[in-house]
């Protein structure tokens, strides 16, 4: 994990004081709310329906026990005893007092955390594969590059007042667990034929009102030029992105309206100029310095097979179910990656109480080399657990209602905060997620259905990523009543696709039944359990689903 040195510590401490000064000017009335808004957003402070919301950066979703315990402490002391993990691998507190924010930031700084650029029209928290450093299929640790990008983008003097927000994600495997093609910049670490490290680069992906899949502008960018190239992309966007309409201001619109070939040429021209001056070319020593922070922990040499693990699977059906869905293969024999579902049936997706955070911190410290990850699917991950220890981890999680064996199943739902919290929302998201989860609560039925991602957004800003849900649900307001529009066939992985609207929306009462109809249609038409919902949809198209949904209409 990256550790602050004196420079980093002073940087964050100065940012706390800078923001304290801005808050004081707001509270004294020197700054109007309009003047203050862009300043507070730059530091993750939103004014929501009921209170201020503070979004804390968790760079590339990596936490340790000390940081997680501090988040638990903040939840208890300054909020209502829980926090909400987000699809940007961040954490939100929803009941914050503005005057307490500087103190919270100070408490965060003590554990090397901050809220810098978690909102606002700037480069947001850089996200990465939540299995980084552990996944069997990765060729490098993508967090090395995410950290380099995090530093470069922090209070960047040229790119702090962009047309709109700007999101970057990094993966280092063919399997895309970070949804890079729906980011402003998507980066895939790869090797060329000469064995050199570099990046495939996509630009102009994004969700929101106008969902678009990113366009590839580089098959192979040399590793050393990552920052030169990103600076070029940002400059083209900053100069030419639309500022006349906030809904048309993202990079995706510029790419779409200008054409990817012309944008790619503009980027290359800027890039050549920046690269020629060399100020951002990364020396190998600097990459190595950052890489050292992400060196693998001291894994033991273990047998790939653990008899304790196998015995527990044979003994306990609930453990076997947990392993089946929530334990992923680790690149080191004898270890597993444990997903902690924050989607207990009936609970708000992504929420964790202070007590749960503390328990997970304890488990991370004891069993996972002190590492915890936040996934963009709003779950937590213990990345490096010995198979021998997984039964004990499972037992401890079960005590705290954290052992729901539903990773990737129909009840592992992404949902935005929705109308329960959000000032932008048109409809509630969390209660719909809860009711769907309750409808499909039977774990045997979930297993029968298999991999199925449901994603729910309470408005067209799409924070719940509904466009890339296998089943996407979008809350809309129709004459004061909440309605839900369903899209099918979206996917945020390496086969990225945007879901298609299947027909007219459903009322809050109808929507759970509609989801069930879709699922039943899939089960009826699939070629077998090996054909996932997404594969079946891609084979069948939307017609049979539409017919089933609107049969009575």
């Amino acid at each position, binding site marked *: 994990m990256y550790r602050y040195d004196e420079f980093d510590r002073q940087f964050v401490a*100065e940012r706390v004081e800078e923001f304290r000064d801005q808050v004081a000017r707001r509270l004294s009335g020197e700054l109007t709310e309009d003047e203050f808004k862009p300043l507070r957003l730059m530091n993750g402070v939103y004014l929501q329906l009921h209170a201020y919301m503070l979004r804390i950066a968790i760079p590339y979703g990596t936490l340790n026990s000390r940081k997680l315990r501090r988040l638990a402490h903040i939840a208890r002391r300054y909020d209502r005893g829980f926090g909400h993990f987000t699809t940007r691998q961040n954490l939100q507190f929803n009941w914050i007092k503005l005057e307490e924010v500087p103190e919270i930031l100070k408490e965060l700084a003590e554990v090397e955390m901050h809220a810098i650029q978690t909102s606002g029209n700037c480069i947001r928290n850089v996200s990465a594969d939540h299995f980084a450093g552990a996944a069997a299929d990765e060729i490098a640790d993508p967090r090395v590059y995410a950290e380099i990008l995090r530093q470069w983008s922090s209070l960047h003097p*040229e790119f702090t007042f962009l047309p709109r927000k700007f999101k970057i994600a990094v993966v280092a495997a063919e399997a895309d667990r970070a949804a890079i093609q729906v980011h402003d910049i998507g980066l895939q670490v790869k090797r060329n034929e000469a064995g050199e490290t570099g990046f495939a680069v996509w630009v102009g992906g994004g969700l929101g009102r106008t969902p678009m899949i990113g366009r590839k502008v580089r098959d192979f960018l040399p590793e050393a030029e990552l*920052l030169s190239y990103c600076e070029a992309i940002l400059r083209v966007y900053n100069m030419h992105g639309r500022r006349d309409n906030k809904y048309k201001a993202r990079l995706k619109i510029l790419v779409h309206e200008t054409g990817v070939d012309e944008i790619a040429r503009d980027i290359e021209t800027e890039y050549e100029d920046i690269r020629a001056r060399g100020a951002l070319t990364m020396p190998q020593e600097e990459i190595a310095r950052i890489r050292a922070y992400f060196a693998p922990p001291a894994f033991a040499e273990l047998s790939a097979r653990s008899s304790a693990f196998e015995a527990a699977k044979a003994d306990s059906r609930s453990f076997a179910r947990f392993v089946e869905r929530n334990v992923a293969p680790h690149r080191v024999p004898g270890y597993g990656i444990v997903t902690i579902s924050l989607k207990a049936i009936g609970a708000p997706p992504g929420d964790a109480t202070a007590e749960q955070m503390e328990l997970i911190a304890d488990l991370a410290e004891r069993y996972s080399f002190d590492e915890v990850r936040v996934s963009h699917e709003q779950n937590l991950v213990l990345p490096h657990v010995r198979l021998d220890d997984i039964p004990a981890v499972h037992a401890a999680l079960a005590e705290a209602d954290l052992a729901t064996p539903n990773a990737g199943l129909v009840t592992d739902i992404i949902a935005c905060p929705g109308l329960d919290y959000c000032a932008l929302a048109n409809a509630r998201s969390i209660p719909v997620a809860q009711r769907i989860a309750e409808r499909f609560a039977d774990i045997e039925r979930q297993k029968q259905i298999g991999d199925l991602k449901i994603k729910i957004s309470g408005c067209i800003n799409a924070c719940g990523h509904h466009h890339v849900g296998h089943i996407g649900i979008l809350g809309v307001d129709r004459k004061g009543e909440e309605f839900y529009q369903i899209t099918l066939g979206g996917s945020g992985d390496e086969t990225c696709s945007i879901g298609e609207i299947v027909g007219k929306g459903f009322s809050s009462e109808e929507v759970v039944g509609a989801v069930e109809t879709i699922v039943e249609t899939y089960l009826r038409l699939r070629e077998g359990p090996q054909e996932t919902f997404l594969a079946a949809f891609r084979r069948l198209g939307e017609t049979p689903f539409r017919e089933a949904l609107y049969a009575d209409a």
Partner: protein
Amino acid sequence: MALYRNGSFVADDPWRILGADEALPAEGPVALPKARFIAERDGLAGRNAPLGVVIEAGEGLDGLEDDIDRLSLVVLTFPKYTDGRNYSTARILRERFGYRGELRATGNVLRDQLRFMLRCGFDALEITHEGTIAALSDGRINLVSLHYQPASRDEAAPPVAGGHPWRRSSAGRL
């Protein structure tokens, strides 16, 4: 209105910033809107006084490339402080074109953005916001002084202690 240049407020501004239709004075330094400058460039060539240009946010440098060497003042406007286009224009002028004349920010120039502007190569700030003028006069500007990326002001400066190539510091100056 106050003009802050190279670290202090200056009382005299020798420049006349002309609008699109204002008559050109016979002598003295003048700065013209970009379009007018380009339209009148041949007539301006014979003028024996410093020349400047005013570039609105979004206008960019296209069409001015061959004139930059003879400019002594470039004024870049910030219609709203959230309109960041001219931060890029400033850096391109300084870094790509090697412009060494006065680079002046005007418009919504506020205390919370001053260091971003200076780091992007501005050396003069035309400030109308009373709170900003007062805070700058009293030394009450509270901004992060450490930086993770080179920008125009310190592009070629040696990094701060520790040797990390992109770290810079504004300690001891705005």
